[in-house]
């Protein structure tokens, strides 16, 4: 049996799944007292329903990191940058408690082009100590190609101030993008301790309940990790809620199709895309609290339009305003809303029908429309707006930059086969939206807990991006900061790929990924290094992964149930 739990901002959802069946589902408002209480209130009924049968794993998705960052209750961190040539480092606006800039530079090939200055390192440490900051993030430009500067500064700090908690940029992420690496490293250290405390509390309460099932946590890229493994980079668990919903839709719709995930809430409509069975990722990483990071996350879009948006008439035309002033009029709120329109159009049964008519009548008076006509107009406008936003999302995916001829030629216009509704108000407008977009409208069973289903079924994923420089005889792994001499000579692309796959299997084993899980080649590129007219070496960029997805046996068992 599998348990999936998503402690969201408004609701906590949980499911118990057995052999492709949802045995029990829970939806309760998230308790203001805290995540742990909410988690337990949802977990306990599931445990009861399980009745002592074996639970294979529990997957948790929480807003812990999101909350820490949103409420600015992260821990203070000093940021030490080694930027080298390029942008003026004075222009960076990182949200560190204090920032320091050191001399020294590494280039794109990982060669030192300017040495560190020991007196600066010393002065920097003095300043940090004087500020009383206990955590230090050290981030160098191109440290993923050569971490010796980060290492040198870190070891100086560690030996002169052993009380400091130190993190280095190359340990967190090796993707090209120094500012994003700085932000991501900063957030990683700033959330680590609080995340660890939460982890200990969860373990404690599970222990009290005698649960021995392995505990996993969901990440923003839709993969799960054993909870213990997430302690090093807790920031990856941000935005796991939307990821859970998207995975849930992946589990509840036919395999391999292209779908829009639609979640209409009170104030916003959240959108995500699944392209031929693969959730779309934000191309360079998630934006957290207005900062760009390298956290891999699904591409989501939030539109300021929901069931509680205010309706009004301006210059003889109906407008849906982006703000909310309370619940729908039919639920005792102050203003007419799309929910009132749905009530009048008989698409929902919530709220007071009389009040819904009353506000639609008032709204329609200026337009010379009956309440019913007014409601229809509201819905039509709402659906048009959502359809437009969906179209824009596909369009911006098509417009994502590409750097190779084949990518530019290959990316064709695609549009969704399904629009899948999961939020509260979604089912009401779904058929209209399907009609507007010319695709199927699906409101699958258990859609209201799709997020918990997604969490329960998410696979452990792992991606490793290798960079080989045969001239320097080095290889690098972006995700875990490995920088080593090549143990064997790499003489061909196939040999390089084999090397990557072997390494992926090894790393996968550490996470408990079974050896018969499918591997995937994400990309492979070879560049000849030519100096003069001679080839002096090759650069290989190869990325391999255990992809994000839904546990296969669920899909097998559900094959017949998927509504066509």
């Amino acid at each position, binding site marked *: 049996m599998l348990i999936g739990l998503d402690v969201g901002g408004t609701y906590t959802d949980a499911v118990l799944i057995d052999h492709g069946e949802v045995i029990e589902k829970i939806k309760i408002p998230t308790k203001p007292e805290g995540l742990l209480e909410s988690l337990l209130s949802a977990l306990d009924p599931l445990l009861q329903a399980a009745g002592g049968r074996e639970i294979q794993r529990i997957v948790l998705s929480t807003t812990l990191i999101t909350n820490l960052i949103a409420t600015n209750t992260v821990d203070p961190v000093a940021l030490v940058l080694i*930027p080298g*040539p*390029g*942008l*003026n*480092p*004075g*222009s960076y606006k990182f949200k560190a408690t204090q920032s320091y800039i050191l001399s020294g*530079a590494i*280039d*794109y*090939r990982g060669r030192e*082009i*300017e040495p560190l200055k020991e007196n600066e390192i010393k002065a920097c440490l003095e300043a940090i100590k004087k500020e009383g900051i206990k955590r230090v993030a050290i981030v160098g*430009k*191109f440290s993923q190609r050569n971490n010796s500067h980060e290492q040198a500064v870190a070891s100086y700090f560690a030996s002169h101030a052993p009380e400091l908690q130190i993190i280095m940029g190359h340990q967190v992420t090796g993707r*090209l*993008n*120094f*500012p*994003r690496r700085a932000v991501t490293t900063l957030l990683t250290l700033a959330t680590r301790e609080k995340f660890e405390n939460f982890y200990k509390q969860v373990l404690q309460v599970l222990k009290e309940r005698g649960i021995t099932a392995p505990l996993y946590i969901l990440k923003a890229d839709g993969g799960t990790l054993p909870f213990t493994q997430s302690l090093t980079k807790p920031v990856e668990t941000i935005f796991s809620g939307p990821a859970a919903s998207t995975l849930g839709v992946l589990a509840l719709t036919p395999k391999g199709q292209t779908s829009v995930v639609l979640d209409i809430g009170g104030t916003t409509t959240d959108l995500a895309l699944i392209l031929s069975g693969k959730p779309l990722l934000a191309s*360079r990483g998630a934006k957290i609290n207005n900062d*760009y990071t390298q956290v891999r996350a699904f591409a989501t879009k939030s539109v300021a339009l929901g069931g509680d948006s205010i309706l009004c008439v301006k210059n003889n035309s109906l407008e849906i305003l982006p703000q909310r002033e309370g619940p729908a009029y039919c639920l005792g709120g102050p203003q007419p809303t799309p929910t009132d329109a749905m009530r009048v159009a008989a698409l929902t049964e919530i709220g007071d029908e009389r009040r819904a008519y009353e506000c639609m009548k008032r709204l329609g008076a200026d337009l010379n429309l009956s309440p019913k006509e007014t409601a229809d107009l509201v819905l039509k406008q709402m659906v048009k707006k959502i359809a437009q936003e969906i179209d824009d999302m596909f369009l911006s995916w098509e*417009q*994502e*930059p*590409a*750097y*190779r*001829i*084949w990518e*530019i*030629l290959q990316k064709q216009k695609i549009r969704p086969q399904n629009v899948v509704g999961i939020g509260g108000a979604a089912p009401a407008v779904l058929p209209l939206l399907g009609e507007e977009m010319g695709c199927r409208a699906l409101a699958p069973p258990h859609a209201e807990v799709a997020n918990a289903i997604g969490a329960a079924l998410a696979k452990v994923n792992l991606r490793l991006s290798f960079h080989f420089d045969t001239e320097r005889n080095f290889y690098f792994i972006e995700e875990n900061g490995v920088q080593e001499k090549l143990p064997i000579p790499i003489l061909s692309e196939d040999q390089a790929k084999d090397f990557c796959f072997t390494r992926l299997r090894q790393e996968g084993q550490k996470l408990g990924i079974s050896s018969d899980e499918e591997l995937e080649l994400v990309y492979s*590129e070879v*560049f*000849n*290094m*030519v100096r003069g*007219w*001679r*080839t002096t070496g090759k*650069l290989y960029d190869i990325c391999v992964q255990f992809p994000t997805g839904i546990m296969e046996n669920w899909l097998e068992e559900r094959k017949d149930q998927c509504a066509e």
Partner: protein
Amino acid sequence: MPNKTGLVFFPAFDWAITPTHPEREERLLYTRDQLFEEGIMDLPEVVEYKPRLATYKDIARVHFCVPDIKAQVTEAHLIAAGGALVLADALMKKEIDNGFALVRPPGHHSMRVVHGNRGFCNIHNEAIMIEYLRKHYGLKKIAIVDTDVHHGDGTQDVYWHDPDVLFISFHQDGRTLYPGSGFADELGGPTAFGTTINIPLLPHTTDEGIHYVLDNLVLPILEDFQPDLIVNSAGQDNHYTDPLANMRFTAHGYALLNEKLKPDLAVLEGGYAIETALPYVNTGIILAMAGLDYSCVREPDYRPENFKESPEHMDYIKDLIAYLHEVWKNREALAEQRQRRTGGYYERRRTVYYDTDNIREQQEEKVKLCAKCPGYQVIRSRGLYPTRTERTVLAVALPWQACSECQEEARSVYQEYINNPRGLDFVYLQDKPRDTYLQYSVSGRSEMQL
């Protein structure tokens, strides 16, 4: 509102002339690494665009391709040119304040008639962009400043007879570098005399010398010309580490140049110091165009004191500037004289060498001299290929500005050659007033229209 700089980055990581050629996959690899590591694309001042494919018609507005466009361009060429078009559109729609098409393959050695690849170029990205802007947005006066170390002989050829396009190229002296042209007395055809300005510089000219030329000649002439659009034909091979040339320009010099020049659109041309120059020069240009501080962009071995000019170089530069100022001031009178001297038609003969493809081209060009307009041109071109085969084509080029008589006359010239195509393989008509491009195949007895 911050400045918005549009950027198309198309490194064509899957295209090369040959695996070890300077124009190969690796060329913009380290530039990519530097730009991505800097997080340039995340800056609020930078908007990244995806290139599109230019159409054959976009190309036919500039070139006569022999035997046809398909034979001369690969998809990479269409995307590089299309990248420039994407930025042109974004600029006209005011989505951006300026734009840099960081694309390859380059184009500034491509002339109007194209028999093959010259100087790593097949089609002319900037000219395709400019003609597109003229057609779709009605721009008239354009200035192109070629900052590549090589003379932009393709650009010069395309706009030699166009008085509304000012072409300024500074480059290493043609006596010491490919393509061996671009001398100070190459000043444009009789109908466009003085709107081609060549500034050949001595080998080893530095930041100081080039900026002196910029401040004292290029910028004043631009100010005087008042163009609707300034294009930087942005080569980076003036750099002091470039393996194919001998100048001493720096990343800082290039950035400062763009800050002063304020190009509306820049398009990458050459630059083959792929490790020591390009990552820094490109970062510098983008920051300068975006109005950001580029003072921290520097090559690892950069020392400002190494880029001062020698007195002999300065004397040479000052003398050259004085001469060109004189020409610029008197260009209208000089044009008048030339037209009178040559009468009803102006003719020139020349040979063009295609280094990459080892083709020789013999060209005879006839320009109609008209009192009301810049006239039209008839080009007879014979390409001698390394396979010991040859093709002869006749091309009629009818510019945007042509008066109605010239338009009629040019169209009837094309008809006459079709009716009597003696010794020709193809006949072309580039009819810009109608935005119609015709190619007649003599052996196939068929006409293609774009």
